[in-house]
């Protein structure tokens, strides 16, 4: 799909519609991210913001960046956030009571102030009067254009950023590594413990079915208190009356001599 063509042809109309549709959603999602109590909800709302931003990138004739935004940011970074949220506590919720005096008011004032001043300053500059569009730059295609720049003019920052990536990965490994609290016992130690404790048979408990005397469909299983479990046989057999009684197969106490011979 030639995004560029779509964008150019219907630039004013479609772009405006899409913008005016998505922009409020973006802002509302951002506001929601601030206001919701549960952190997981915040993460999901941020993911929504990022996806709409990706659409904005595509609208701005930067399709490569838009897709990268979805894959890297929404896909990797937000997933990472969610992993950590799981680690920290999914249910962790902030109480809405503000502990620092004046922080809320001043924070809102400062943020509104920054936003308002930025908008005022930006609008006073004559930025919007010159509009070129990216037809020329995207002449060979957006990816090719970006590739030309990355591996041409910006190859040195590219290398540095890759070094940064490696460092970050290493750093994360170092930080997240945790020495075990105590030495993990190996198999031999575990076995010795087991023998020492004598709480259970050394050879281990018998597997399932070892003491089974009968595995017919007509014998119900026994519940822990000794009664038959109705669910373990088919209703048809029960209805036909062909249910065998488990007591017929009760285990018979024998003497020790007998057991040895068996």
């Amino acid at each position, binding site marked *: 799909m030639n995004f560029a063509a779509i964008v150019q042809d219907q630039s004013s109309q479609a772009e405006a519609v899409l913008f005016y549709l998505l922009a409020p959603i973006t802002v509302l999602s951002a506001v929601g991210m601030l206001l919701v109590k549960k952190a997981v909800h915040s993460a999901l709302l941020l993911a929504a913001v990022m996806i709409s931003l990706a659409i904005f990138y595509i609208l701005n004739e930067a399709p490569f960046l838009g897709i990268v935004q979805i894959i890297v940011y929404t896909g990797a970074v937000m997933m990472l956030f969610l992993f950590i949220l799981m680690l920290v506590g999914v249910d962790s919720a902030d109480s809405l009571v503000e502990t*620092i005096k004046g*922080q809320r008011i001043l*924070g809102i004032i*400062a943020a509104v102030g*920054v936003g308002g001043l930025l908008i005022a*300053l930006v609008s*006073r500059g004559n930025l919007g009067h010159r509009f070129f569009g990216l037809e020329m730059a995207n002449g060979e295609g957006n990816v090719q254009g970006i590739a030309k720049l990355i591996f041409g003019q910006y190859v040195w920052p590219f290398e540095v950023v890759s070094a940064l990536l490696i460092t970050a990965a290493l750093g994360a490994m170092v930080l997240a590594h945790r020495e075990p609290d105590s030495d993990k016992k190996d198999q031999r130690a575990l076995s010795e413990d087991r023998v020492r404790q004598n709480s259970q048979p050394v050879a281990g408990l018998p597997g399932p079915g070892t003491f089974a005397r009968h595995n017919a469909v007509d014998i119900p299983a026994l519940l822990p208190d000794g009664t038959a479990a109705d669910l373990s046989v088919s209703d048809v057999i029960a209805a036909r009356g062909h249910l065998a009684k488990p007591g017929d197969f009760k285990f018979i106490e024998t003497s020790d001599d007998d057991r040895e011979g068996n």
Partner: protein
Amino acid sequence: MSLGTSDTLVYLIAIPLFSSAFLLLGGRALDRVGHLIGTAASASSFVVALIELNKMFARDAESRGVTQHLFTWINVGSFQVDATLLLDQLSICFVLLITGVGTLIHIYSISYMAHDIDRRRFFAFLNLFIAAMLLLVLGNSYLNLYVGWEGVGLASYLLIGFWNQKPTYATAAKKAFVANRVGDVGLSLAVMIAFVQFGSVTFDGVAKGIAAGSASSTALNAMGAAILLAAVGKSAQFPLQAWLGDAMAGPTPVSALIHAATMVTAGVYLISRSNFVFDNAPTAQLLVVIVGAVTLLFGAVIGMAKDDIKKALAASTMSQIGYMILATGLGPAGYAFAMMHLLTHGFFKAGMFLGAGSVMHGMNDEVDMRKYGALRKVMPITFATFGLGYLAIIGIPPFAGFYSKDKIIETAFNAGGSKGIILGCVTLLGAAITAFYMTRVMLMTFFGTKRWDSAAHPHESPWLMTVPMIFLAIGSITAGFIFSNGDRLKNFLAPVVDKEHHEHETELLAPIVVTGLAMFAVAIGISIAFAKYGRKTIPASAPTDVTVWTKVARRDLLQDDFNESVFMRPGQSLTRVLAFLDKRVVDGAVSGVGAMTLRLAGDLRKTQTGYVRSYALLILLGTVAILTAILVVTL
């Protein structure tokens, strides 16, 4: 007057000075010989002084002065002062008086202080005094004089408070020192004025400067007034006279030497030495005669009411120095007579003080004259020497005081106009009162009936005490005649104090008339005293039903009360206020700065909350501020 040079002047000062240091540093080891070393040092100085006198007579009248340059003392830019000694006719009189009378008093003290464990220290201080006083009279500049001036003040303090185990004596020493210090401000001011006006502080430099006319008359009057202030402090004149009575707390030899003969006459020396200033500063001269006249009567009135023999003699000293100061204020004619009276007074007053010491020694250190009486039979030598001094002081011819006091009265009358008449009458009145109270002292002490305590066994003093008294009595008899015969002293001193050889311009009264008036005044005084004290019995304790004048005179004419209410109490309040201001305002400001810093720090500390979010808020607020600034700038 040209000045020669000498190599030997320094020995005058050096011998007593080193002796003093040696005695002080030698410690108890020198206790057995300290007094002998001290007396020998003083006697050596006297011998050197006699040699210098001899040399001086050998020179001719216009070039009798000699100087000795010791070292360059101060050399700062345009201010240069050398340590140079000057010996001329004026100084040699003083040098002989100091060393001569001083040596006699040293000999007297060997016996007087024989029972005192600190006798060696006493002689060390006496030698220190001799050295300082000699430096005072031998200095060739106001600044060199100042060194000696301070030295004698120190020695006076040390000696008045010699028995400082008694707190009142120590306080008396402090009082004397403080009163002296107030006067010393005057000398400092005079030095400064001299330097500013003339660029030099030597006597020669100032005299030349005045002759060249480089100072305005206000400057000269100011300098004269400053010198007068210094003299008033040192010589116990009005208004700084309150310390002299209390200075009698020191041992009697001290009173004789310092507070009769020498230190208190330093003021007269200073004014005489500064004759070139006063002759050109008529306002200052007028102040001088006023101070002299007032003190003359002041001392005399106090002397009438004192029962303590030493305090009576102290008041008499105050009065006699008033005579001398008055004489110095009468211009070129008066300086020589002031000097004559100074020298004769040195003899008879020192003699009388030594006599008083002898009486006290015999009466177990009792000073109240009401406990004396009829001592002439028991202490004949003391009676004789004291009596000769008495005759000299009241001015009976042919004894010493007659010549000197008479000349002063004469010069006072000849000062001209109403001033002369007033001064003359004041001096006559003073003579009458002097006769009265000195006769009172004589009658109460040596005549009348015994009023002794039961424990008193009066006896004549040992020969070490009586021989100096005899020598001084000889001086009381002969000195006056020697000095005034043929105007000998006047002509001797003329090249220094009276260069133009003024003669008496006006003669209000013929000299014989003046003498007659003086004799008449003296006779009145003696007869009144005789009537009150010679005939009637003297009460054992001071009578209380007396006139208010007597009461006031007994309280030293309220001088201490005045000083206390005018200076001491306001001064103490001022000190309290300043101390309070210092503590609250100055210290408060300083510690206030500290406290404010602490408070500021405490408030700033609250911004470090430790919350990351509040720090983030601050960052964001800063960003807002920057953006606002950009917006405002680009508006």
